């Protein structure tokens, strides 16, 4: 494909990728972060477990969350994407456009896949926060929400940012399959024009662009994470 034709296609595809990944990450953090923290709080030795006792619904919540996260993580993304089509249509309906097709719709399966991925990373990060810090805050009279905000999340922040970076890159990878539901993006451009039409230039340019984006995300994430880390 000549450059003049390729350029606007690249521009649109890049915008689509950014849009899909951006919205997905927003929802993923909003839902995945609380789930990850809850996985720790409700586990044995966790603050909520200690507060309400192991026999309370807290333990059941932990089991259910753990199971949901594991199931979510075991699906290959392509299968999840297709299997979720009815759900995607329903969710999009809530926003007044009942469709399972398009860039916006793609955000639904991407988010569903990214939440358990990110939640596990959050869980690991939060678990690594020194118990002594939690105890010190409790000794100062902090409530559980205060401990979560001022100690667990704040202390885990450098590691959470690293997890966010990893998740973003995974989502960029998943977003390449957006073509399946006609959502476009760079991955779709590479597959449709580059791979199926044997257009080496399109293929090379889109792949290089994706590499640059992933590198930029990794670099920024690493930089922010290091800046936040005072250990």
């Amino acid at each position, binding site marked *: 494909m000549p450059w003049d034709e390729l350029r606007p296609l690249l521009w649109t595809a890049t915008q689509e990728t950014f849009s899909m990944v951006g919205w997905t990450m927003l929802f993923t953090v909003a839902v995945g972060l609380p789930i990850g923290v809850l996985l720790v709080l409700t586990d044995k030795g966790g603050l909520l477990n200690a507060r309400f006792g192991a026999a309370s619904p807290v333990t059941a919540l932990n089991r259910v969350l753990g199971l949901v996260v594991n199931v979510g993580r075991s699906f290959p993304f392509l299968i999840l994407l297709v299997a979720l089509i009815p759900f995607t249509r329903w969710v999009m309906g809530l926003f007044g456009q009942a469709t399972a097709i398009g860039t916006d719709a793609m955000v639904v399966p991407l988010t569903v896949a990214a939440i358990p991925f990110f939640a596990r990373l959050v869980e690991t990060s939060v678990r690594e926060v020194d118990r002594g810090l939690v*105890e*010190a805050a409790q*000794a*100062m009279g902090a*409530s559980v929400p*205060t401990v979560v905000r*001022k100690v667990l999340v*704040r202390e885990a922040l450098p590691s959470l940012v690293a997890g966010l970076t990893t998740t973003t890159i995974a989502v960029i990878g998943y977003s390449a399959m957006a073509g399946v539901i006609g959502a476009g993006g760079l991955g779709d451009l590479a597959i449709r024009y580059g791979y199926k039409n044997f257009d080496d230039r399109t293929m090379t340019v889109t792949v290089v662009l994706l590499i640059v984006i992933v590198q930029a995300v990794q670099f920024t994430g690493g930089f922010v994470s290091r800046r936040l880390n*005072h250990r």
Partner: protein
Amino acid sequence: MIRTTALTKVFRSRDREVTALDHVDLHVAEGEIFGVLGRSGAGKSTLIRTVNLLERPTSGTVEVAGRELTALSAGRLRAERRRIGMIFQHFNLLSSRDVAGNVAVPLEIAGVGRAERTRKVGELLDLVGLSAHAKAYPAQLSGGQKQRVGIARALANDPRVLLCDEATSALDPETTRSILDLLRDLRSSLGLTILLITHEMDVVKTVCDSAALMEAGRVVESGSLTDLLTRPDSRLARDMFPLGLSADGTGGTVVDITFRGAETAQPFVSTLARTYNVDVNILGAAVETVAGRQVGRMRIALDGTFEQNVVPIGYLREQGLQVDVLGQDTAARPFPGPTASDSDSASAVSATAGKDA
């Protein structure tokens, strides 16, 4: 100020049960520095952690500043905890916040406004001598400086009580000394009551007014240091003054002398020998600074039986010295006899008695 009543904590896991605290009755008076000593696993940490209910006791009650903490709701307990400072062996500072930020945490928790927080943090950092390091992160500080931040943080909400769990165990002797000095100063200037846990006798000797010895979850001995020192059977006193001897193999009358303050300067041994013409054999002696005062203990053997030595012993007592004649009738002693709980040192004393009498 702090009172525990029949405090018991049993840790249960699937296949075993550990009684970490076994009916502990502890009383820490207002304004005193109280040390709890014991070997590893004796239950010291469990004890201090139950005082602010970081650990819920299995049974028994905890009272701090007249409030029974064990009877409070979760919300009221959090409010009370703000008035109980705590410092830790590993400091437990937030690595994500600088020194000033760490000291501000308890103020934020208590809902203190920003301007007041800044003022109070400045004041606290002055108090612990860290004003120059307000913007440093914990990772950039030495152990002693970190513990100072911990102390400033613990004092942020003007507590009446300070709990210290092995607060100097991760520090070198010199730094330990400076932290202990700081604690002593704070006790006097702020009227704090301090409960500290340690496995170092030196710490108790340097700062404590009172001490308790724990063993297998029980308090086996407790009292003010000056009291303990006058108890011939006190294991704390014996550890404080490791004379490390028995009265075996010596003829004559074996006498332990405890003296303090100005008495240390008196040349009573030579006076005794000269005036009463008795042979004095010094079996062991130690002088220490306890609770800021010089205290010494000496074990001597006087030639002859007790009856032959009544007069020289009377002389020693006239000098205001604490004189403990090993192996004589307990009723005649001017100080408390062996406590029932301390059975093995009681039997050690009576064994010596058998030989000498």
